[in-house]
């Protein structure tokens, strides 16, 4: 095990890590400049995970956020989340998620399942009722399906379209990205709720407000906000890395 970790940190990896962190920050700022509703600030981390391995990916993520923290302390508080993202990207790389091409129907299926569960999640939240004692009841799945059948069908179609046209042949990378996003949302919520009072200081706070208004607790609302914004963001990041690795010359990947 120790031998394997050592092998991951070759001179090339050590050189790659600062470049990856700079890529994280440069693209993160670019996206803000283009006013897009995503972060895309972990592309470099995912890239190191994919090229060098899980431990190098984890180190890249943690350092990226800690160094960014010299300017933006908010990022530093979530260094462990970034580390887990790099770790999962590395595991995905080991399983070949960034090399294999998936059939397009699989990408469509991934997209459909994703948008479907997202819709169910949001509807469950917005239809929750809180009684006088402060106890929150969530609607049953059957009620949701019968009341919002049309919305669910539309969601599945939109999801399948996203998968088919956006993910294209990167379905495996997309799945790993989605899973990573869900994990990131869950593990970042406690810090966001306890240290920062449940807010991110950015546009996604509107989501937190909406979930709070529909009766969610602080931790649950933060987690829900993350579950809406993170998986999509990480799916895109993994996709971009998949695209990058496909455009790289083979001799670069060989090492």
């Amino acid at each position, binding site marked *: 095990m120790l031998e394997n970790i050592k092998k991951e940190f070759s*001179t090339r990896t050590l050189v*790659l890590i600062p470049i990856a962190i700079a890529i994280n920050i440069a693209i993160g700022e*670019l996206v803000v*400049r283009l006013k897009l509703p995503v972060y895309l600030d972990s592309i470099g981390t995912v890239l190191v995970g994919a090229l060098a391995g899980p431990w190098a990916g984890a180190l890249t993520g943690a350092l990226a956020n800690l*160094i960014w923290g010299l300017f*933006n*302390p908010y990022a530093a508080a979530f260094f462990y989340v970034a580390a887990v993202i790099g770790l999962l990207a590395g595991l995905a790389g080991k399983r070949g998620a960034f090399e294999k091409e998936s059939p397009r129907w699989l990408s469509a299926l991934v997209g459909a399942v994703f948008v479907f569960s997202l819709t169910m999640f949001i509807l469950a939240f917005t239809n929750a009722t809180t009684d006088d004692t402060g106890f929150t009841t969530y609607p049953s799945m059957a009620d949701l399906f019968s009341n919002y059948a049309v919305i669910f069908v539309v969601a599945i179609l939109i999801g399948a379209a996203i998968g088919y046209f956006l993910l294209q042949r990167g379905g495996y990378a997309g799945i790993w990205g989605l899973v990573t996003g869900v994990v990131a949302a869950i593990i970042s919520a406690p810090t966001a709720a306890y240290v*920062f009072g*449940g807010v991110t200081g950015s546009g996604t706070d509107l989501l937190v407000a909406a979930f709070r208004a529909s*009766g969610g607790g602080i931790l649950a609302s933060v987690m829900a906000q993350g579950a809406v914004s993170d998986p999509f963001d990480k799916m895109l990041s993994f996709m971009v890395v998949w695209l990058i690795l496909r455009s790289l010359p083979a001799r670069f990947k060989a090492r």
Partner: protein
Amino acid sequence: MNAFSMYVARESGLHKLHPLTKGSLTLLLLVAGLFLPGNWTSYFLVLFLILPLAYWGKIFHNFIRIVWGISLPFILSVVIIQSLFWGKGTPIFEFWIIAPKQEGALFALVSVGRIILVMSGFILFAMTTRPDTLMISLKQVGVPSSLAYIIVTTLQIIPRFQSKAFTILDAQRSRGLETEGNIFRRARAVVPIILPLVLSSLVEVEERAIAIEARGFNSKKEETSLIEIPDTNAQKIFRRILIILIPTIILFRVLWQLFK
């Protein structure tokens, strides 16, 4: 050297402290503010420790301005969201659908204290510590030099990458790439900018790796440093006390939680 850092050069006692002393102090402040019981601990620490330290470091006005600028969006968000959308509670006043709750306002105030503590603690450290001296002192206490290399290099190349990204953005624009307009149009601009940025940077990896290996990067000999970092025995003892206090506070909180 145009490095990515917040460091403000001043002649002050705080600046002259050993980087690790400031580092352990910052860590202790954060741990104390977040782990000690009581709602107002973080306000207390900011008022009676962090602000005087900033004054001692002769960065008071800059410091207040930066902390305020960074914390304000969080403060506004947390106050608005947690007081207005608290759910069940005692309303402070009611006006149409606006009814802030006392419990929510209290939670918001406590959170504001924590937010200001975390932001000001980090920023005080960043403003008074040169990143390169921090790295050298970390190396001296046994952090691998490869880790130090990563951090120093990152701080140096970030500004270059930022300008590189915007150069590519301008170049693609001049070729007719649309970067304004509706969201789909803007989203389509992302890949033509990211791909050249990442691919051209990866080409650098090889050159840099050869360059640092040629300069003895993998040498096992003990390294010496050009910059000497002044350290005193008093500071060494002080650091030791700080480092013992950190786990003590966490342990205290765990016990407090168990036997309350």
